[in-house]
Each structure stands twice: as structure tokens, then as C-alpha cells.
């Protein structure tokens, strides 16, 4: 085992949509078992970066290595195997609204085409779903047979989290896990994320623009601004750094290097 290979290594990743250069030369490393937080304003390319790593979007150039293997050099079967080790909590939870909660949670076990994994019966899948629901603080007897639209936003996020961790992924992605929740529920979700990641020993990448959340979840942090990673460091240094962009963003200042147009010229 080489200690030096990071779980995820991204080099010079670029992606544009027409003339809109969303990612420019993004490079970052995420060490195994650590949590990496990416902060940045709306439209700065955070979601696009996650989608590239997840293989939902193909970047224009650059490389993404997972366990030292460039995913763009793998066959599609090998890439699917890598994907199988990843879980994602979507910004809007993206639960399957035609399926009851327990099937949402156990979806990958029930329907996923998972190589080298034992098949589970519906019965086993139900039991696993209940266990995972408990892990995220939901009472399975109450929610397992409900449908997603019968739950509150915070509960949907928890189900989304349960679905993302049910197959025990090695890497978990969180896209703005606390956006749209009240501060207390946000803290609860952060705590659940932290404990799930610690329990599974997973590597995590979270994107957020909630500073409190970034501090709670992250070991390392980076700031994305106009598609470039302009700062990387320890999450606990986010509020102390003298980088003017990060300072303005983390303190929510109107004045600073980041200009937001409020008037149409």
C-alpha cells in the first residue's frame, strides 16, 4: 500500500459550455478518509465539478484519478465499477417520487447492476433500508412506506443521505446539503453527514455556501471563484485567511474583490 496516492486527484480540469468557461484548470487532491469542502458563490461551477467527478458530465480537458487510476482511461465497465463505489446526496435530494421511502433507500441493492456484489432479496433489502433509516435518525416504522412528497424538506434530505450511504460507498458527494433548511436542521444534517462519513470511513466532498456547515463537515477546504480554485487550505482556516476573496465570501461582505452586479448597465 502506498500511502501517498490520494483517493481523488484532479489535474487541470476544464469545462466550458460554449463561451461560458465554467471550470478552468482545476487541480486538487483529496486524501483517503478525509472530508473536502468546496465553497463558492452560485454559478461558480461547484455542481459541474461534482458532476465531472461522478462521470455525469465529460470535461473538455484534464484528468481525474481515483485510487491512482485516470477514469477517462478506463473501459466503461471499469468506470462503472468505480462509480459503484460512489454515493451522492443531490441538492434537491432527487428522491424517486414513484417509489416508497424504503425502496428509495435500498434502490441500489434492489435495482442496481452491481458487479461482484451479492444479490439481496426484497426482504433483506427492506431490513437494510430500515437500519440505514435509523442511522439518519428516521423511524422506519413511521416513514418506510410513505412516499417522498409526504415528507418535509429536512426529512427528504435525510432519506437522500440514507440512499447515498446504503451501499457503503467509499466516496460520498454532498451538493449543498443544508441549503433550504433551517439552521437547526442544517446542523443536524451536518452532524449526520459527519458521523456517517466517520462510521463508513469514507472520503467525502461537500459543496456548500454555508460557512458554519463548511467548518463542521470539512477537514480541508477550497474556494471556487469563476471556475478557478483560488484558495485551498484547512477548513478551520477559512475564517482566518487573509485571501481577500475568501475573506469577503466567508464574512458575507458587500465590498471586496468579488463584484456582484445589481444594476443592469
Amino acid at each position, binding site marked *: 500500500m502506498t500511502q501517498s496516492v490520494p483517493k481523488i486527484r484532479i489535474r487541470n480540469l476544464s469545462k466550458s459550455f460554449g463561451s461560458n468557461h465554467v471550470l478552468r484548470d482545476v487541480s486538487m487532491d483529496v486524501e483517503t478518509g478525509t472530508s473536502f469542502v468546496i465553497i463558492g458563490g452560485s454559478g461558480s461551477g461547484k455542481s459541474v465539478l461534482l458532476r465531472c467527478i461522478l462521470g*455525469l458530465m465529460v470535461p473538455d480537458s484534464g484528468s481525474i484519478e481515483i485510487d491512482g487510476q485516470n477514469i477517462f482511461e478506463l473501459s466503461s465497465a471499469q468506470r462503472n465499477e468505480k*462509480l459503484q463505489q460512489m454515493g451522492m446526496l443531490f441538492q434537491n435530494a432527487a428522491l424517486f417520487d414513484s417509489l416508497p421511502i424504503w425502496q428509495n433507500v435500498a434502490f441500489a441493492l434492489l435495482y*442496481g*447492476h452491481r458487479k461482484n456484489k451479492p444479490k439481496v432479496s426484497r426482504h433483506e433489502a427492506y431490513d437494510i433500508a430500515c437500519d440505514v433509516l435509523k442511522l439518519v435518525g428516521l423511524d422506519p416504522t413511521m416513514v418506510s412506506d410513505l412516499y417522498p412528497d409526504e415528507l418535509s424538506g429536512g426529512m427528504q434530505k435525510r432519506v437522500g443521505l440514507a440512499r447515498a450511504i446504503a451501499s457503503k460507498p467509499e466516496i460520498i458527494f454532498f451538493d449543498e446539503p443544508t441549503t433550504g433548511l433551517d439552521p437547526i436542521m442544517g446542523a443536524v444534517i451536518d452532524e449526520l453527514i459527519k458521523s456517517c462519513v466517520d462510521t463508513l470511513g469514507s472520503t467525502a466532498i461537500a459543496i456548500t455556501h454555508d460557512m458554519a456547515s463548511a467548518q463542521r463537515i470539512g477537514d480541508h477546504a477550497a474556494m471556487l471563484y469563476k471556475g478557478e480554485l483560488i484558495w485551498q487550505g484547512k477548513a478551520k482556516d477559512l475564517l482566518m485567511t487573509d485571501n481577500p476573496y475568501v475573506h469577503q465570501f466567508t464574512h458575507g461582505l458587500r465590498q471586496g474583490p468579488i463584484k456582484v452586479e445589481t444594476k443592469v448597465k
Partner: protein
Amino acid sequence: MIRQISKPLVWVALLGRMVLSGVQEAGALALFALQGIINIFSPPFYWRIFVGSMINIGYLSLPVVALTALFSGGVIALQSYTGMAQYHVDSAIASIVVLAVTRELGPVLAGLMVAGRVGAAMAAEIGTMQVTNQIDALRTLSTNPIKYLVAPRLLAATIALPFLVIIADILGVLGGFTVSIMKLGFTPQGYIMATFNAVKPMDITIGLVKAGVFGFLIALMGCYHGYRSKGGAQGVGASTTAAVVAASILLLVFDYLLTDIFFSK
């Protein structure tokens, strides 16, 4: 000077661009259809979705298809009677009804009804899943969305529509029979004899082949337009409309082509 030279070229360029985008669209559709078909035959196959679609397309469309067929058969009997009474060939009514229904009206009317009911519903369901990231979520849960969403629907529609058309054929003939007996003074035996003398197994078979093709086209349009939905509720609405319009037009075009191939020898 440059403007003057380029004026006609602008039109050429515009035409070229339209042709290109048309070709691109056709290529994308063909690729989508091909992927759908390949995924029917490669494991795993999602039986639950297939059975659900069969029930939705076949069973739940029965009332509307049955009513349509019944009344159309009756109307043809009436129309051909008033049209032919003057030539004293009213014995031809039974054969007109049965041939019109099995060759044309059964498949086409059932197809159009199902396109409105099922094609629209498929586009709306898959479109909603697309714009709420549920399709991305499928991919992060080791599930191929084409295999999970599209393949079972294509197969179900291709199988269900011929069954619907068998029912439509029977009820269409029954409609003609009822009108002929109750209103036009035919004897039941005579009418039934005339019906069976007129219709050949080939007529029914070709009608059912048409139905299978129509079923495939309806599901293909529903899935394709749903899959390409963009931009929220309005986008889903637009793709629903597009699915129904495209399915109806394709259905009539293919009806002509198939009729030309099978009957015009």
C-alpha cells in the same frame, strides 16, 4: 461590399444549419432507439416496470379504445349504408366494416388514443425525473437509466398495443353488427357470414403488425422527449406536447408506409 456578397450566403448558411440540425436530431433519435432496443435484450430486465407499463398501456387504455372502436364500427355501417343503398349493394356493408376496422381503424384509432394517454404520461414522468435530477440519481445508484426507464416501456407498448387492437377489432365489428341488425334490418346470420367471408387472416395479422410498430413509436416518442426535457415544469409540458404530436404524425406516416408495403401488391 462584404454585406452584399454575403447576402445570399446567409440563406445558404441558414438552410445548411437547418439540414444539419435535422440530421443531428434524427441521428440522436436513432441512437436513442438503438440503445433502448439493445437494453431490452441485455440483462438485467426490470420486470416490475414492465408489468406496470403493461397494465397502464394495455389494461387502463381498454375503456377508451373499446368505446372508440365500438362507435367507429357503428358509424362505418351507417355511412356505407347511406352511401350504397342507391346501388343495391348493401350486402357489402359487413365486409366494409370488417376490413376497415381490422386493416386501418383498429390500429390507427387505438394508436392515437394510446398516444394521447400513454405517450403523454411517459413524457411527463420521465421529463419530471430528468429536470429533478432523478435520472442522474439513477446513474449514481449503479442503474442504467435507459435500461431502467426506457427498455421496459418500449417492450411493454410494443406487446400491449396488438392486444388492444384485437379487442378494438372485435368491438368495431360488434359496433357495425349492432347498427346493421338494429337499424338497417340485416339478419344476424347473414351479417356474420358476410363478415367471415370478407376477412382474411392476413388482414388481421397486418393490422396487428401495424399495432406493434405503433406501440413502439408511441413509447419511443414518450421516452425520447421526456428524456430530453429541460428547464422545469414548462419544459416538461413542452416535451409532453412534443411527444404526443410526434407520435401521432409518425404513426400516420408509418401507417401509410406499412399499408403501401403490405396491401398495394
